[in-house]
Each structure stands twice: as structure tokens, then as C-alpha cells.
């Protein structure tokens, strides 16, 4: 293979530094980024459902859906959830990254294409709304019937809902849990029928539930975007909070959804150490004194997980309301 081929390598594989043109808050836990080529050059094209990969200075890579307009090749728009369980990932974007900074980017790539259909039902939860946004425009352009059900914890945590509601009145169903509780998905989708495609993006729990419901629908109805498996914490975006008792430090702390034990404990001044924040290096291993861990690391064997004696507190969480740690 020669450099010729290298030069023809599709833009999707090579990395390019892009510049942060703007960074602003889109909800109480989401920031919106606009990335441009530093020389103002055109960016590689993409289709609704595509994502790009950000290569962060810490060495981590994270994938984010493009949520802007595919016809505009001057910039990429992203919505990024502050998920401290992927420290060095989204938390770097939230706190470390500033306007005019450069970031290495590869992509776009698309594993979530919008296939042709006379009708679409889009379901998004939380940050899962981002890949849906260009899909709505595309569905509209194709003249299809469609609606979006947009779920989230509360309106203040949900990004872009005002923008969507204003653009497509009557087609957007905003569903914050704190106002309506968790929706009855079966009732939302209605009876199985032909000619509908269901597109969904959100936490693993939602996607599993939809897989169950859509089992009775014509094959090929359901299209899912799972969060990048590289980021297991995000893939299983925790929907519940729990309390953690630090026996040695004599503290009891609340670990809200989207934050890790490590982060909460460090902030409170407890002595914690961590390195990879991905559940691979074993630096943060901590003994469990009571309660039941929800293991999400790749260090412990299945037997060790079942034994419930030790856990990696950078990614793992709790199945019980209270978890007591030797910390």
C-alpha cells in the first residue's frame, strides 16, 4: 500500500483538528458545541443519524451524534451530556474545553441511517434526542408522517426541547418524568402495524423495553442507536440515584444519576484515587461493607462480581438504596 492510497483514505478514518466556534449550555446538564475547520474549509458531509468521534487530550475517544443540519458543511453541531462517570470524556468537554480550542475529530460515520418509510415514530430519552434532530428534518423533507416522543428527567435537564416544539408544533410530545412519570411505551406505540419505522435512542433500559414491545411488530420496524459500547457507563445511563456511606471517612453522600461514586467522594474530600475511569486499571478498587454493587467494570470476573466484596467505584454503581464502602 502506498501513500497514494493513504491520501485517498476516506475522511471518515483520518483525524482532523477542528476548532470550537461556540460552546453554550443547552440544559442544566448538556452543552452544545459548534465545531468548525480552523481555516474555514468545508467539513466532510453526513446523513441524519451520523456521529463523529472526539479524541480528547486525555487519550480517550468519545462518539457524539451530529444534531445540526447536514446541508450546512461549515460546522458540526453536537449536544453533550455531562456524564462524570466518563471522566476525562464528557466532563472534560464541560469543564476543560473552551471556545477557540482545537479538538481532534474523526468521522462522520453512520450506523443509524434513516430508511425510507411513509411513517416514523421517533423516541428519544435524554441526550438520545441528538441523532433524532436531523432525522426529523429529513422525515419532514420526505413528506412522511412522523412524531417524536422526547423523554427525560425534567424539562430543565432536557436539551433543545423549546427549539423542537417551536419548529414542529403538534408533532413533538415532551415527556419529563417529573411531570408525567415514566410513559407507558406500549400505549405510546399502539397496535403493531405495517408501514411504520420506530427509531429510538436512549439508555439501555428504554431500548430493552422497546425491543420487548416491538417483538410483536413486523420485522425491521425497530431501529436503535446504542450509546458507544466504549463508554459502558453511558450505555447503561443510570436512571436512579443511591446513597453511599464512606465508613472510614464517616460521610454519607448522594450519588445522583450521571455521576460516579469516585467523583462524588472526591468532591466531598474523601481519599480516593483513580486513573482510567473506565473500569480497566484497578486503581479505584474498593471494598464493599454492605449493600449490593451494580458492577460495570471489566476487571472483576463473574464470580468476583457475584461475591459482592470489591468494586471499581469509577464506573460501578449500586443496586441497593445504600451502599457502604471501606473508604
Amino acid at each position, binding site marked *: 500500500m*502506498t*501513500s*497514494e492510497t493513504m491520501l485517498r483514505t476516506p475522511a471518515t478514518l483520518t483525524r482532523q483538528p477542528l476548532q470550537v466556534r461556540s460552546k453554550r449550555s443547552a440544559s442544566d446538564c448538556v452543552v452544545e458545541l459548534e465545531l468548525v475547520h480552523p481555516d474555514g474549509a468545508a467539513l466532510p458531509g453526513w446523513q441524519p443519524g451520523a456521529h463523529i468521534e472526539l479524541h480528547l*487530550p486525555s487519550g480517550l475517544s468519545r462518539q457524539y451524534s451530529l444534531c445540526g443540519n447536514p446541508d450546512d458543511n461549515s460546522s458540526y453541531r453536537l449536544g453533550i451530556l455531562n456524564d462524570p462517570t466518563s471522566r476525562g470524556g464528557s466532563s472534560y468537554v464541560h469543564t476543560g474545553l473552551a471556545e477557540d480550542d482545537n479538538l481532534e475529530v474523526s468521522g462522520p460515520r453512520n450506523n443509524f441511517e434513516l430508511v425510507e418509510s411513509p411513517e416514523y415514530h421517533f423516541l428519544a430519552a435524554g441526550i438520545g434526542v441528538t441523532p433524532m434532530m436531523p432525522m426529523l428534518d429529513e422525515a419532514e423533507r420526505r413528506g412522511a408522517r412522523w412524531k417524536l416522543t422526547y423523554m427525560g428527567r425534567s424539562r430543565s435537564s432536557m436539551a433543545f426541547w423549546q427549539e423542537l416544539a417551536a419548529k414542529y408544533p403538534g408533532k413533538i410530545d415532551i415527556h419529563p418524568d417529573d411531570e408525567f412519570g415514566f410513559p407507558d411505551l406500549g400505549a405510546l406505540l399502539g397496535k403493531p402495524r405495517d408501514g411504520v419505522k420506530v427509531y429510538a435512542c436512549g439508555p439501555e433500559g428504554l431500548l430493552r423495553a422497546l425491543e420487548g414491545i416491538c417483538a410483536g411488530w413486523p420485522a425491521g420496524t425497530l431501529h436503535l442507536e446504542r450509546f458507544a459500547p466504549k463508554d459502558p457507563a453511558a450505555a447503561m445511563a443510570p436512571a436512579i440515584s443511591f446513597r453511599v456511606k464512606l465508613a472510614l471517612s464517616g460521610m454519607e453522600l448522594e450519588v445522583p444519576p450521571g455521576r460516579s461514586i469516585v467523583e462524588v467522594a472526591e468532591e466531598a474530600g474523601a*481519599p*480516593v484515587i483513580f486513573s482510567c475511569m473506565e473500569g*480497566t486499571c484497578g*486503581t479505584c*478498587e474498593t471494598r464493599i461493607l454492605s449493600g449490593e454493587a451494580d458492577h460495570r467494570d471489566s476487571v472483576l470476573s463473574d464470580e468476583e462480581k457475584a461475591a459482592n466484596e470489591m468494586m471499581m467505584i469509577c464506573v460501578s454503581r449500586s443496586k441497593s438504596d445504600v451502599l457502604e464502602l471501606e473508604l
Partner: protein
Amino acid sequence: MTETNILPEVIEAPVSGYDAFSLETLQDVHTFDGEQREIAPVVYMEKYGYYAITRYAEIQKALRDWRTFSSTDRPFYAPSAFRPRTLILEDPPEHTASKAAVFKVFDAENLAKMSTYFKAEAERLIDNLLADGPAEINAYTDLSVKYVLKVFPDVLGLPEEGRELLLKFGDAVFNVFGPPSDLQAAKLASGTEAMEWVESNTARDVQADGGIGWQLYSMADEGKISEHTAQQILKSIFAAGFDTTTASIASMIRAFADNPGEWQKLRENPGLVDNAWEEAIRLYPASRYGGRWATKETVLGGVRIPEGAKILTMWLGAGRDPRQYDAPDEFHVDRDLKNAHLSFGFGIHTCAGNQVARLEARTLLRAMVERIEKIELTGEPRKTVNYQAFGHDHVPVRLTPAVSA
């Protein structure tokens, strides 16, 4: 000794006549450490009276269990100015405070600043090397050392003058934990030349405002660590942060020169850069072993280890453990490492500088992949001879630039 809680399958460690520190061994550590690995997961090295853990799974297990496998003493330990006790010879809770401090100075924010700088320097260096077309170089001195001794000391705020002493210092540091010998005496003597430079450049008053050293001393002001610890941590960074990375990068280039197909694979898929680097240090770890002692009698991999035993964790050999890796002697940039190797250690003593080392190496490799079409050996590579460090100090290669658009 009681027999109550010891299973019948438990064996005593096979007694081995292996001398892990003889000059003959040091010429070919992969082969000799590998032979011990195939005897048993734990062997008893009779000559020195130490135990050695030889296999991947057992080393990982031991490194996770710091209560049983303590760091506060180790084979060949005697107080040494080259190896301060801070971090490496500490257990929790002291270790936790020191480690939190050193991780803090390599947090996402500091790494972000380093990243931009490393990239610019890596690209400049490669562009210069290739300015007149294909270049024949020693990848250790002309590329790896040049790059590492430029970027990391710059980030630390060290003077240009005397930087090469860091390599001598590191070379001594990585020969402390071993038996007295001519080799050790020579390494320590050469390291002594560097001691004064290291002492004066870790002193509080020379640290530039906002720099890494300044941040450490500021943590001392906040009461998070003592001022003495701040200086010892800085010294540990000097000790562990240079010849490890220079050796690893030179070894990685050798791996590519030996495997031209892998370079092509990487050129076709630059997304594999990060994985390629991890694979290179699995194959050629810069650190050959670590040390622990058993706080109580224990059984590891079916082998009894008595209370008080001093133990070598032989992670260089574990990087080629066939129980963990298929075709372990081969270099494959797309090998599925399943997130793991032991070349940065594991558990609470995981390399404090792993993120910096990774950033340095990946940044350089990325700049190379974009610019270099071919890497060919032009002579015999030469390995270094050390107790604890492994590397290459001579990797003669021809670099052929990629034809740009």
C-alpha cells in the same frame, strides 16, 4: 504451620536455580523470564531467597490485593536516594494521599494543555527529520530521546541545560532493586552525576509559577501532602518519567521495523494508533518487574507463599503469557488486548504517569503514521542491559517519507 485452611492442591513453590540478574539473563530477559513463567505461576528463587510471580493472571491478582501483597518492602530494598519511599514503597493510607496528589497534576486539564504542545513538537520533529527525503537514523537517540527530552521537561519547566542527565538518573533508578554487582555499581555511579541536577531542579524555589512542580508544592501549602512529599513526588516523576518513555518508544519503532506489514496496516487504518502503542508495550515493557512482600501466608495460583516472603512481580514475562495472549511473541497492531496488559502495573500502584506516557507516545506515533511511508531496519537493533528496565538504545532505521499531495 496449620493445615486447616490450606487445600490439598496447594503446592510449595518450585525451587528454581534461576538468576534473574546474571549478565547472561540480562542479555535476553524475554526468553529467560519466559522459561520461569512456564514452570509455575510462582517460583522460589533460591539464590536470593525471593519468590517470583510469573504469570499474567496471578500477577494481576496480587497487584489488586495490596493488603496481602504490600509495597512497604520488597526484594533488595535498602534506603536509596535514587528511589525515595514516596509512592512506590507506600501502602494506603499514605499511598492514597501521595497518589491523589500526583494524579491531580496529570488531570484532564493539564493533559489538554500538554496535548496541543506535544502534537506541534512531534510534527515539527518528524518534518525536520524528513526534510531532505528518506532519513537514516538511530530511532532511539534521533527520534525518541530527542522528542521526549524536549516535550516533557518543557512541560515540567526544566532548563535545557543538563536534561540528558535525566536518562542517567533513570538508568540508576532502574538498577537499584537488584543484587550488588559491577553492573549495578556502574549504573549507580553514572546516576550520581545526575543527582545534584535533580536535587536542585526539584527544589521549591526553582519551580515556575503554574508548572507541575509549583502545583505539587501548592498542594503542600493546602495541607494535602507535606512539603517533603511534594519534593519526593517530583523526584519520582524525574526518576520514572523519562527513560521509561524513551525506551518504550524506541522499542515500538523496532517492532514496526521488524513487522513492515503492521506499519502498512496502521497506515491504512490510523484509528489503530492507540491500540498499536498498547500492543508495543505489551511486547516490550519498559519495566521488567516490580516488588512486594507478603503480609500473611497466602496461596496464589495454587502455590503457597509464606508470610514475610519478598516477591518479584515479573510483568515483562507476563506480557507474553500464552494463557493470556494468542501468539504472544507476535506484534499485531489490531490485537484485541481486551483493555489489559500489565506494562503499567495494575491496581493502586498503576503507573502514575500512564496518561502522560500514553499521550506522548500516541501523539508521536500519529505524527509518524501521517508522514512516514516505510520504516526499515538498516542494522542490528541493540537492547539495553539493566536489572529492572528493558529497552533499546540502538534502533538503526531508514524512514521513507510519504509522498504528500
